[in-house]
Every structure is written in structure tokens, then in C-alpha cells.
């Protein structure tokens, strides 16, 4: 608990987390506004109300990676290890704090986005949180944000440089996973099981749903499988980060 409050002081005594959190909320609300007003609100769905959360998650990963890499950039990681020489405790405290923050941010943003779109949507397509799928599409972002935070902390710890870590965290979900599709024959299948693509299935309406008149991709993992793939990625990367942290000179 002590170490959590240590990390909390560290995180919130700098400016970038505030900016990142504000822009995550702004992205969530902006897309919710857009989806609620397109065609007079007749296209609004629970799924579409959450569009901004996908960008929000990437912004949160930047925040989480920076929480680690700025410590390396300014040498404060050494002060951290002088204050807390048991290095796993530092990494655990940092990870837990960012996981909690990620979950809270996702919860606030996803509900804010849902209710904004719901308020704007046409009465012909009422948005409700009735089925389990509805809840999963909204609250599911909480789990994804939390796991994304773990991935970002791990990448930040492994790479140590802000620019490098952020590049990886942007290129991987936005570009790399899509490029995999270009591999002949198996590309499509691999793509569906890549961590971020698989994770997206956890908050998507399901294989038979249509978005703007187009069917979502068929095949690939189910919602729960998608979450597990993402979680496994987070665990593997985090374990690697811990191992490296222990062996490396600070």
C-alpha cells in the first residue's frame, strides 16, 4: 500500500498524466457525439458509442509507458531503486497503480460515451444496457484498458526510451497487426488472433452483427478467447520485463 501511494505521488506530481487522461475523455466523448448525431442518430448503437475508447486505450498506453520511461530518461529510476531496493516491488506498485487508473478511466469514459450517444440517438434505435453483450461492450473496456496498461508498463521497462516504447505501442496495434493480413493464405487467420485485434473482439457485438450496413469480420477468437489472448500477451511481456529489470544494472 505504501509503495502504491509512492507511485501515486510520482505519477500525479507531473503534468503528462492529466493531459493524457483529459484527452482520453475528450476522444471518448467526441466519438460518442459523432455516433449519436450521424444520420440524425439513426445509426447509433451501443458498440459505436464506444468508438473513442479504442483511441483512448492507445493514449492510456502512452501514459503508462511514459510513467516508466521518464524515470529512465531523468535518472529517477535509480532514486526509486535507492528508495526501494527490491526492484520487483517497484514494478508491481507501478503496474497496479496504472491498472487501477486504467480501469477507472475506462469505466468513466465508456459510461460517459454510452450515455452521451444514448441521449443523442434517435428514438427509433434506443440504446439499452439490457443483454450481457451490451454490458460487455461497455464495461469490457475496463478489462482491456487494465491489460493494455500492463503491456505498456512492460514495454516501457524493456525499452526504457520514451520514443522507442511509444513507437512500438502505436505501430503494433495500428499498423503491424494489420500488415500481417498481407501474408498469403494464413495472414487473415493470424491477424484475427493477434493480441490487439483479438482484444477488440471482447468489446465487439459478435460475428453476426452489422456496423454501418457491413458485417464485422467472421472467424477469429470469441469474445472470451480474445480477452485471454490479450491477457496472455500482457503476462508474458510483464514477466520478461521483470526478469530484465532484475538482471540489468540500473
Amino acid at each position: 500500500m505504501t509503495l502504491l501511494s509512492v507511485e501515486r505521488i510520482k505519477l500525479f506530481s507531473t503534468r503528462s498524466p492529466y493531459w493524457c487522461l483529459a484527452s482520453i475523455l475528450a476522444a471518448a466523448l467526441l466519438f460518442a457525439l459523432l455516433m449519436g448525431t450521424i444520420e440524425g442518430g439513426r445509426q447509433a448503437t451501443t458498440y459505436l458509442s464506444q468508438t473513442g475508447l479504442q483511441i483512448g486505450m492507445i493514449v492510456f498506453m502512452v501514459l503508462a509507458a511514459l510513467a516508466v520511461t521518464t524515470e529512465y530518461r531523468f535518472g529517477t529510476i535509480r532514486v526509486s531503486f535507492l528508495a526501494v531496493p527490491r526492484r520487483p516491488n517497484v514494478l508491481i506498485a507501478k503496474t497496479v497503480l496504472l491498472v487501477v487508473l486504467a480501469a477507472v478511466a475506462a469505466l468513466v469514459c465508456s459510461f460517459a460515451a454510452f450515455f452521451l450517444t444514448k441521449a443523442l440517438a434517435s428514438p427509433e434505435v434506443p440504446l439499452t444496457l439490457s443483454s450481457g453483450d451490451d454490458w460487455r461492450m461497455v464495461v469490457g473496456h475496463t478489462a482491456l484498458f487494465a491489460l493494455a496498461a500492463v503491456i505498456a508498463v512492460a514495454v516501457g521497462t524493456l525499452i526504457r526510451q520514451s520514443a522507442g516504447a511509444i513507437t512500438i505501442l502505436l505501430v503494433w496495434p495500428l499498423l503491424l497487426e494489420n500488415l500481417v493480413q498481407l501474408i498469403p493464405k494464413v495472414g487473415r487467420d493470424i491477424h484475427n488472433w493477434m493480441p490487439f485485434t483479438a482484444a477488440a473482439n471482447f468489446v465487439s457485438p459478435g460475428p453476426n452483427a452489422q456496423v454501418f450496413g457491413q458485417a464485422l469480420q467472421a472467424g477469429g477468437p470469441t469474445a472470451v478467447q480474445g480477452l485471454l489472448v490479450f491477457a496472455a500477451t500482457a503476462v508474458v511481456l510483464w514477466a520478461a520485463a521483470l526478469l530484465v529489470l532484475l538482471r540489468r544494472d540500473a
Partner: protein
Amino acid sequence: MIEVKELTKFFGKTLAVDHLTFTVRPGAVTGFLGPNGAGKSTTMRMILGLDNPSTGIALIDGKRYAELHQPMTRVGSLLDANWIHPNRSARAHLRWMARANGIKEHRVQQVLDLVGLTEVAGKAAGQFSLGMKQRLGLAGALLGDPEVLLFDEPVNGLDPEGILWIRTFMRRLAAQGRTVLVSSHLLSEMAQTADHLIVIGRGRLIADSSTREFISAATRSTVLVRSPRAGELQQLMHRNGWSVQAQDGALVVSDTPIEQIGDLAAASGIPLHELSPQSGSLEQAFMQLTGESAQYASHWDPGSPPTGGVTDPYAMAGALPAGAVPAGAVPGPPAGPITGTVTGAAPGTMPGAVSTTGPAPTDPDGM
């Protein structure tokens, strides 16, 4: 107490620290001396558990740093004053360190007062001058009121006032019975601060002795005498059994108080044109000890003065700004070899000349 036993560190194939063994005792300032790249910082980082030793072990009060409970209450350290987040306030910087080591919140204010940063405590530390950052680093080291303190080159880049302040601070900490280890590449600086010296070069132990012993072994205090009747004076001195040598038309007298030489000349009515204590050989001695072990030796010979070093203080002083004659050049009590330093002797008079980094051929203290 700090115990370093057979400590060795390889960076790849480079041997940075080579089977280093020494002990740092409480109640004294121990200087950790060596040229740049000798392995001082690496050793300190290994003592503090930041770097993993290749072999050997470093213990603080019998335990490895990583085994200490709330280590900042046992060991305070300032390795690099720039290890701060530029957007974080000084107070926040100290607050998280205090929280991590179970130190009460009011102690943060206490150490801020102690180092004189109270008024700027809310400011982002990135706006601090180097001197202020050093003070913040010192505040961090003192936060847990530790018994053991380590400072790595604490006066590097500071102005004379800052140097004096840090030096006084370290002496006071040792006087309180704490264990203080201070690294430096300046023997002249250490001579004024440290009671005991651990000298290393290329990662190996060169000397481990009291400062007084080290300096008297490394240097002999001499007095330079110029007189139009030098021959006569030399004979008188010989008769008194003093050790005297003629050198470039002047006399160099060893191991004799400067007052006695002056009195002798006056009693015999011999006019003196110059009577000055010679202390420059201190840095030369250090160079000889560590010169072979300096990691990056310059192959450029600046053309040293014919007598080598500082036998003529005015030749040396001429290379410095006007008014910057080292205090030690003024005849004083028996040549304390340490009085000839520019850095600490005249605070505030010539900050521009205080170069504590890099070799400057004309600066007797700028080793």
C-alpha cells in the same frame, strides 16, 4: 560502516573495478579519490545496489543495500544531482522518497529548511540551478537522517560558495559520528575535506591511509628563497644543518619553517627578494601515483615549466585572471600543502576560474 570486499565489475570485457577492498569508518570524512574513469562511481553504485558486482560484495553495517529495511533511514546518497523529474516540485520529489521509507511528512519540510530550499520547494525542480539541484540532492540524502552517507563528486560544477557550503556540511555530518564517503578527482579538494583517503586508479586500490600521511608521503613542503646574496645565505643555512638546494639562481629549502628562514636572513642582514612556500607538488604527486592508471591519457604535452609544476607561483598566477593569486602564495604558517587552492581559498572572487573538471595545464588545481 561500509565494507567493500574484493569488489570487481566488468562492463563487457572492460574491467572497471578490480578486486577492490576497503573499509569506510564512522566519525570521519573518507575521501574516495581517483582520476576520471578510475571506477569511483561504479564502486559507489555497487555499494548502493544499483549495479550488480561481477564478483565480490559491498556491505553496509554488515548487510547488502538491498537487504536493508527502509534503506534511506540507514544510508543517504547523492550520486547525481540531475536525477530529478524536471516537472516535479522539489517538495513532491522528497515526499515520495519519504513515503517509500516510512519517513514522517514533516521531515520533508525540515530537510528543505536545512538546505535552504524552502522558498522554492513548490517550484519544478527542472528550473533549479546546478547548485540548487545539489542542495535538493543533499536534502534527499539527509531525509532519513542516515548514519551512512555517500556523495559522488558533490562539488563538481559548483561555485566557490557552494563548494564551501558542501564541504562544511560534510565535515559537520562526520563530526556527528556518521560514516561519510565522498568521491572526487581533486586531491586539493579532498585535502581540505577528508580525514582519510582511499585512492584508486583503473579500478585498483592505490592507497588507503589518513589524508595527512598520504600528503606528507606524497609531498615535501619546501620554501623558495630569492636573494641577491643567495650564496651567503646558503652557507648560513648549511651551517644550521638545513637542507637547501640552489636552483635557477634561487634557493629551495626543505622541511624548514618559513619564519625561521626569514628570521635568519634578517638577523644576518641579507635582503630577500622572494620568500614563498611551495605546495604545488601535491597534485604532481597525485599525478605520479595515478598517472599511469588514468584511463584516458592525453598524449599532448603542454610543455611544462622547466622546474616542473609550481616552483614559481607568479608564473602560475599570471595565467589566471588578475587578483586570482592563490591564497597559499602569500607567506603564511608552515606551508600547509593545501593552502594553495584557488577553489576554496577565495570564495566569490573569481567564479570563472574555478574549473573543477578537466585537465588545465596552467591551473595547479585543475587536475
